[in-house]
């Protein structure tokens, strides 16, 4: 299990605010740097699932439009790519976060990616499922461990049947 790559993730207050709003959390701890005084959460802190937003800083992240590359979402036609639509990235089966300490604006995190296990399973609702595990360890600017994220992705043989 070797390191695949590293991504630098500067954590900014505005980004934390946008992320918190998007999950429907309006706690002032997420958007007011002065909320520390008298707030049980203390100084501005990021929600536990925020490390996932490292995607914004990952140059190779597949689920973002990139300069000069075809995008598989719709424009004039249902998909911008020919043939079988790229369900790029597949679906998310599991996600786990384990914290050494909370993430706060001002942190400059280094995300180290590594590949975990891969396994297969048959399912009634979507055919053959291929599961892939991915680990991301986040370290701060002093080299101290902050968080480990373990994600399990699944690629389905066909779209998931709706019951």
């Amino acid at each position, binding site marked *: 299990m070797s390191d695949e790559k590293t991504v630098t993730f500067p954590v900014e207050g505005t980004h934390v605010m946008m992320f918190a709003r998007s*999950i*429907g959390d309006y706690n002032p701890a997420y958007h007011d740097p002065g909320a520390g005084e008298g707030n049980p959460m203390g100084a501005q802190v990021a929600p536990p*699932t925020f490390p996932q937003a490292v*995607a914004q800083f990952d140059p190779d992240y597949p689920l973002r439009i990139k300069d000069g590359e075809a995008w598989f*979402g719709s424009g004039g036609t249902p*998909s911008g790519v020919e043939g079988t*639509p790229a369900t790029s990235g597949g679906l*998310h089966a599991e996600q786990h976060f384990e914290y050494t300490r909370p993430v706060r604006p001002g942190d400059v995190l280094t995300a180290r990616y590594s590949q975990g296990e891969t396994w297969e399973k048959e399912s009634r609702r979507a055919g053959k499922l291929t599961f892939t595990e991915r680990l991301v360890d986040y370290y701060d600017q002093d080299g101290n461990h902050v968080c480990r994220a373990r994600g399990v992705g699944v690629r389905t043989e066909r779209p998931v049947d709706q019951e």
Partner: protein
Amino acid sequence: MKASEISVGQTFEKVVVEDLKRTQLVMYSGASGDYNPLHTDDLYCKEAAGYPGVFAHGMLTMGMTGTLVTDLFGAENVRKYGVRFTNQVWPGDTLTATATVQEIREEDGQAIAEIGIETKNQDGKTVVLGSATGLLEG
């Protein structure tokens, strides 16, 4: 949350979203950086990907469910939070998260609680199932 105020088996419930809006999927795409058209692009979903329409990012459901975890512990006290995604979440869904206290223990003088987490939609179908661990206040 204080150790003296909770007990094993106790449950907490929160409606984490009512009538989920497509706009919230757009907000989550923008904030997280996950711009998969499966979550924002109805035309792509229906005519290219074979789904009835856009559906929520698993991580949005985990994030919304996580607001119950952070309401209980405070975001800075969460040490573990993990889920399995068991069913898709669609615009219009109303999701209710339930936390059940499973264990309260002390590590190096620090009180810690483990809670089980389950979020169901308006039809009673489980959409995420998981657990969280957090530090308790003295």
